[in-house]
């Protein structure tokens, strides 16, 4: 008891005098994997094959017992019905919201693809896309392209935030965005444009 009390006092003193640093571990490798998986989904698989998505499978708790003698052991049922798999250090991107954003971006990508290829649009350093040269776009398509870019960027903002929120760390949003920004550019096809660190357009 006495030592515990002393330790508590020492702890309080340490708190009062020391600077407390809280390190929040950002799973950078997992974020990169998650980004690649979504980029595969949106752009189609690149040189890497698509990773199968781990889907947790489990069922409701079940079983009952009765004092009258009928006792179905919960443990037995639990063997039949596996629990959900632990997620480990992975960054989970399986929520319906994230999947629906990915699906919406994948559909839109088919419309955006010709504009990436002509250089009319390019990837920015903050994980968004931008119209690079309107003069490469027929007049009648310009507003449609502006709409596609606006909608895609709305999806991108939602994607980065939802991944952070779904993994219980909303403060990771900017790191997730950075990870994605880097991977979008690294995975961009030859001939596509992106903004480099100084904000200048470069062609891959």
């Amino acid at each position, binding site marked *: 008891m006495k030592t515990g009390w002393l330790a508590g006092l020492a702890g309080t003193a340490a708190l009062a005098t020391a600077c407390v640093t809280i390190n929040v571990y950002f799973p950078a490798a997992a974020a990169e994997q998650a980004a690649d998986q979504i980029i595969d989904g949106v752009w189609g698989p690149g040189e890497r094959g698509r990773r199968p998505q781990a*889907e*947790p*499978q*489990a*069922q*409701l*708790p*079940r*079983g*009952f*017992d*009765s*004092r*009258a003698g*009928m006792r*179905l052991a*919960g*443990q037995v*049922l*639990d063997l*039949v*019905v596996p*629990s*959900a798999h*632990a*997620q480990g250090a992975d960054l*989970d991107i*399986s*929520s*319906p*919201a994230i999947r*629906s*954003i990915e699906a*919406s971006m994948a559909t839109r990508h088919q419309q955006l693809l010709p504009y990436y290829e002509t250089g009319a649009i390019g990837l920015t350093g903050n994980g968004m896309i931008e119209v690079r*040269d*309107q*003069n490469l*776009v*027929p*007049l*009648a398509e*310009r*507003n449609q392209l*502006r*709409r596609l870019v*606006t*909608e895609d960027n*709305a*999806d991108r903002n*939602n994607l980065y935030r*939802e991944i952070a*929120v*779904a*993994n*219980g760390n909303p403060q990771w949003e900017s790191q997730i965005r950075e990870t994605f920004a880097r991977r979008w550019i690294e995975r961009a096809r030859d001939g596509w444009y992106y903004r480099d660190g100084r904000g200048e357009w470069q062609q891959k």
Partner: protein
Amino acid sequence: MIAIPAPRPCAHSGPAVTWPATGLALLLAVLPAAPAWSAPGLTLTLGDVSGHGISLYDVELALDADPTQGGQLRIARAQLPAPVGQIETLQLDCARVRLTTRNVRCQGGNAAFSHGAQVFSASPLELRIGFDGSLSLQFAGTALAGGQLAGLITRDAAGTLQAQFDATRLDLAELAAFATLASLADDGLLADASLAGSVGIDAQLRLGTDGRLGAEGHLVLNEVTAASADGRAASEAFGLDLAWRLTGFTDSALALDLSAMADRGQVYVEPVFLDLAAGPIALDADLLVEGSRLTLTRVALRDGEDLSLQARGAMDADGSGWLAITQLQARLPATFERYVQPFLLGSPLDNLQSSGSLSATARIEQGRATQLGLNLDAVSLRTRDDALALSSVDARLDWRHEGSVPTSWLRWHDGRLYNLALGPTELGFTLQGERLSAPGRQRIPLLDGALVLTDIEATGLGRGLPDFSFDAQLEPVSLALLTEALGWPTMGGSLAGVLPGASYRDRVLESPGELVVEVFGGHVNVDALRIEALLSPLPRLTADIVFRNLDLEQLTGTFAFGQITGRLDGEILGLRLLNWRPSAFAARMATPADYRGPRRISQRAVDNLTSIGGGMGAGLSGGFMRFFDDFNYDRLGISCTLRNEICQMDGVAPVNGGYYIVRGRGLPRINVIGGARRVSWPVLLRQLASLDQLDQAVVQ
């Protein structure tokens, strides 16, 4: 007139004598009297001549020994008024020079000069200069900017000037390189811009000595394909016909009437795109120029059948002025899609579909709108995803920059918000400056209840999306109708609530108030309600929900779950719906520990509680327990904390590493015990859905 002192001729063979700078007319007037025409040739060196904003440098006139056989006028450099500017090495060759007592004529002439890097020539050319001050210059077939220029300029002895020009198919790119457009390029306006196409201009002009001017002509643009460097303005194969007429006095008032029709090609001025081939645009304008003041007497613009606009206005050289759109008639959706929607990209209104018609007026002073009026007539509005729809919308909106404002109103006959029927509504409000205010109650019928908004205030009307604040009250809406509209199992009861201090800001709707749902004999309180990105593809709702004293008998009856009697308390905290689907919450519900009323659970409810587990739980009906209809229970409850699609589960008490979902009481006793702590939420939802089907099958 250009004044010159008497020139002194000199023999070509003799030493050259240069006269002081003089003028052309007097020189020519003097010529007939000059001696030494018999000389083999004659060169007059006139030096520099200037006057009327024109300066000629190193003027030299050379005549053959027999002047009727030809002559030559050379000017090293000439400075002419804008837009021509400086021209160089001007040379006029005349095949024949005719000299009479009344005039001198140059016939079969050929003029050549260079302007910048370009060399121009005009041929054949006839020039007649009368000694009475009259003048005539005619030229045909002058190559100019890839096209042809022909002209006739005459001035009679009294000084009346008449001119005719006809320029056909001038190349715009060459024209742009020519003259002052080149200086605009330096200003960046046309830097790196591309321009191709042709222009044809014809003009007739008459200018009397009294300053009376009469001029008219046409301008035709064809196949104009142009783009600014940033691509924000561009045209493709654009074509325009313009007729103009200018009348009045140069020193007092000039009236300009324009009539233009653009019916070829396409134009894009970010963000507006016009396909003129599909929908020609016509403009008629009457302007009056008095000194530095420009008055728009009448402007009429017509975009096919979709838009017509009438305007008046005035502008001074200092930029001050006003413009009044006296009438604007527009048909929806064409006008909205063409001129309004492109500006709303990314806002909740950018996916609005409309039909009907509108009319509007506006007044703009010193470049700023001061007054707007808008009438909507039988307009229907609908978001593309059908989240919001209003039909038979009529409105009279009056906006003033300042001062007193008439009341605006907007009404609709019926509508729909996320499939919930909205009844006939009339909203009254005022629009002034950046503010909308609607003091008092605005009642919007919703199903069999109503949403009452009180003291609506909005600021930032000039911005894309204003901020709204209001007090909201929901008059009781029957749950039967609400659940039916939402496609949920029909529930009895009602939904009502008060949301004071609600706001809609940065696309976030929130309120510190509370919604109260009176249902199943108890009540459900919805707290900390916040909806982000309403009417976007991914709306997000967060709320805390607490429910107390729900009658389980009514609840289970509603969901055909099998009967349970007793009461239920619970809460769903940190509820987060993404696109109206739960993505996170901490839910906990249980019978209150202190409830001492009847607590019975039917065999079917037990079956259902277990069969949710995958259809294997029909255990009860198989054993001898099937002889009992229902059982007593002590407590029942379940909790689920949803995160990452995983439901972390618990019950009312721990048992053998698991937890009680139902803890039985008395004999025969039945317990339902949960084992799994982590359950996949999608699987759970699928099982609940199949349970619903199972029940429907039972009902049938």
